[in-house]
C-alpha cells in the first residue's frame, strides 16, 4: 500500500475505486465529496460543480460498462474512478473501455470542446440543447460540453489500446478556485500509470484522507454496493465486510485527530481469491502501549484461545458509551484465521502511526 499512497501523498483526500458502477455508488461518492468540501476545506463553493461532474463522469462509465460483461474483460480492465481533493482544486479521473471504431469521433469531440472559449461552449451547449442533435461544428454530446463548461479547464484525455477491438479511454477533469483557464494538474499519463498500478495490484479501493464517521458510512456503503447488494454474498465476502467495518469503525473511534481530521488510509485488494485489507491511521501516544500489547497477545494465541476469549468477552456485557465493545480485533483474528500483520511506528513528525494488514 505504501508505494501507492506515496503517489497521492499531496492529496487531502484521494479515493480510487475500481469495479462495478451504478447510480447508488454515484450518490455515495457525491456524499463523500460534498461532506469533505463543505466541512474540511476552503473549497466549499466548488461543491455543486464537483457533484455535477462526478455524476457526468459516472454516467459516461455506466453507459459503456454493459459491453464488458459480454466480453468478459471486467477483471482485466475494471472501470475506474478517482476523486482527488487538493489544496486549491479537485481532480476527477476515470477510465472505461470503448470500441476502437469510436476513437476517432470521440477524439474530434474532445479536441472541439477543448478548443472553445467558455462563451463558445455556452453557445454550443444551447445549440445542442435546442436542436436536440449534434452541432455542425463536429458534434459533441451534452455531457461532454457540460463537463468542459463546469470544469472551466481543458479536459485531459488519452486512449490506450487493450485489444484489437477495444481501448481504454482515460479522462481527467479539474475544478479549481482560480479563474484562469490554465490547467495546473498532472499530466494524463500520470493518471494512466496510476490506474495501471492499481489494476496490477488488484486494488478494488484505495483511500487516503479523513476517516471520520460520515465518510466511513459512505465508504462502507460503496463497498456493500460492490460486493453484497443485489445478490447473495458468500460467507467469505461477509467475513471481509465485517472485518472491514471493524477496522474502519475502530479508526473512526480511536484514530487521532490531527488538524481537525482523522487522517487515515486503507487499501482493499483481491489476490488469488483472498481479500486483503491494508489500513493505517495515527493514534494517541497514550493508547499505543495498550494497543501494542493487545495485538501481540492476540497474534500469539491459538485459534482455540481466540475463540475462548471471544466468548468470554461476548458475555461481559460491556459496551462503552460510544458503542465500543472490545471485540473488534478478536473478530478480525477469527475471520482471518489469525492471519494479520501489524506495525506501530513513529513518524518523523513524532506521531504514532498504526498499520494493520489482514488477509481473508
Amino acid at each position, binding site marked *: 500500500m505504501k508505494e501507492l499512497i506515496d503517489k497521492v501523498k499531496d492529496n487531502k483526500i484521494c479515493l480510487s475505486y475500481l469495479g462495478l458502477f451504478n447510480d447508488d455508488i454515484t450518490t455515495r461518492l457525491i456524499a463523500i465529496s460534498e461532506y469533505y468540501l463543505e466541512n474540511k476545506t476552503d473549497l466549499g463553493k466548488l461543491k455543486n460543480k464537483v457533484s455535477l461532474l462526478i455524476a457526468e463522469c459516472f454516467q459516461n462509465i455506466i453507459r459503456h460498462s454493459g459491453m464488458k460483461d459480454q466480453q468478459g474483460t471486467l477483471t482485466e480492465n475494471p472501470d475506474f474512478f478517482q476523486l482527488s481533493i487538493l489544496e486549491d482544486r479537485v481532480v476527477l479521473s476515470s477510465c472505461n473501455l470503448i470500441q476502437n471504431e469510436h476513437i476517432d469521433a470521440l477524439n474530434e469531440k474532445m479536441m472541439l470542446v477543448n478548443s472553445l472559449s467558455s462563451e463558445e461552449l455556452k453557445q454550443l451547449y444551447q445549440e445542442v440543447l435546442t436542436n436536440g442533435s449534434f452541432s455542425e461544428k463536429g458534434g459533441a454530446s451534452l455531457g461532454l460540453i457540460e463537463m468542459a463548461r463546469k470544469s472551466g479547464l481543458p479536459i485531459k484525455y488519452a486512449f490506450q489500446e487493450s485489444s484489437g477491438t477495444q481501448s481504454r479511454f482515460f479522462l481527467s477533469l479539474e475544478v479549481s478556485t482560480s479563474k484562469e483557464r490554465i490547467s495546473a494538474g498532472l499530466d494524463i499519463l500520470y493518471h494512466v500509470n496510476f490506474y495501471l498500478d492499481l489494476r496490477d495490484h488488484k486494488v478494488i479501493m484505495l483511500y487516503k484522507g479523513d476517516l471520520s*464517521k460520515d465518510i466511513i*458510512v459512505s465508504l*462502507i*456503503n460503496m463497498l*456493500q454496493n460492490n460486493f*453484497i447488494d443485489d445478490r*447473495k*454474498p458468500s*460467507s467469505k465476502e*461477509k*467475513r471481509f*465486510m*465485517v472485518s472491514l*467495518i*471493524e477496522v474502519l*469503525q475502530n479508526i*473512526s473511534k480511536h484514530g487521532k485527530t490531527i488538524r481537525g481530521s482523522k487522517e487515515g488510509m486503507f487499501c482493499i485488494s483481491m489476490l488469488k481469491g483472498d481479500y486483503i485489507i491494508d489500513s493505517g491511521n495515527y493514534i494517541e501516544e497514550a493508547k499505543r502501549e495498550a494497543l501494542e500489547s493487545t495485538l501481540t497477545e492476540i497474534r500469539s494465541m491459538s485459534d482455540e484461545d481466540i475463540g475462548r476469549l*471471544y*466468548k468470554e468477552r*461476548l*458475555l461481559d*456485557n*460491556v*459496551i462503552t*458509551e*460510544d*458503542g*465500543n*465493545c472490545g*471485540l*473488534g480485533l*478478536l*473478530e478480525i483474528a477469527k*475471520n482471518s484465521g489469525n492471519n494479520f500483520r501489524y506495525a506501530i511506528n513513529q513518524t518523523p513528525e513524532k506521531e504514532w502511526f498504526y498499520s494493520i494488514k489482514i488477509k481473508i
Partner: protein
Amino acid sequence: MQTLVIPQTNETPEIVLDGSEGTFSFAGKSFPENVNDFYNDTLKYLEAYVLQPRDVTTLEFSWLYFNTATSKMIVRIIMLLKTVNKSGKSLRIKWFCSPDDDLIIEKGNEFAELLGADFSIHYL
C-alpha cells in the same frame, strides 16, 4: 402493547417488536456507529414487555451480517428476554440462515452455547 417497527437502512436491520403476540424479529445488517443509540428504543420496549410477557415469547434473527458491538447487543436482548423464564413462561429463539453461510451459523452456535436458551438454527 402496540407493535413497534423500525425500518431497515443500509447500516441497521429491520426490527419488528410485537409485544401483544410476544414475537420479536431482527433482519438484515447491523453496524450502527453507536449500538447504544440505535437499540435504545428496542431495549426500552422489551424491558416493558418482560414485566407482563406472553406464555411463549419468540425471538427471530435473520442476519446478513453484524458488527461486534451488535453481537453484545444480541446477548443483552437475549438475556433480557430470558427473564420471562423466571415467571414460568418460555422463550424460543429462532436463528435463520443459509446452510452454506458458515459465518452466521458459527455466530448462531456461539450464542446457543453461551446463553443456554431454547435456541434453534433454521436453514433457509
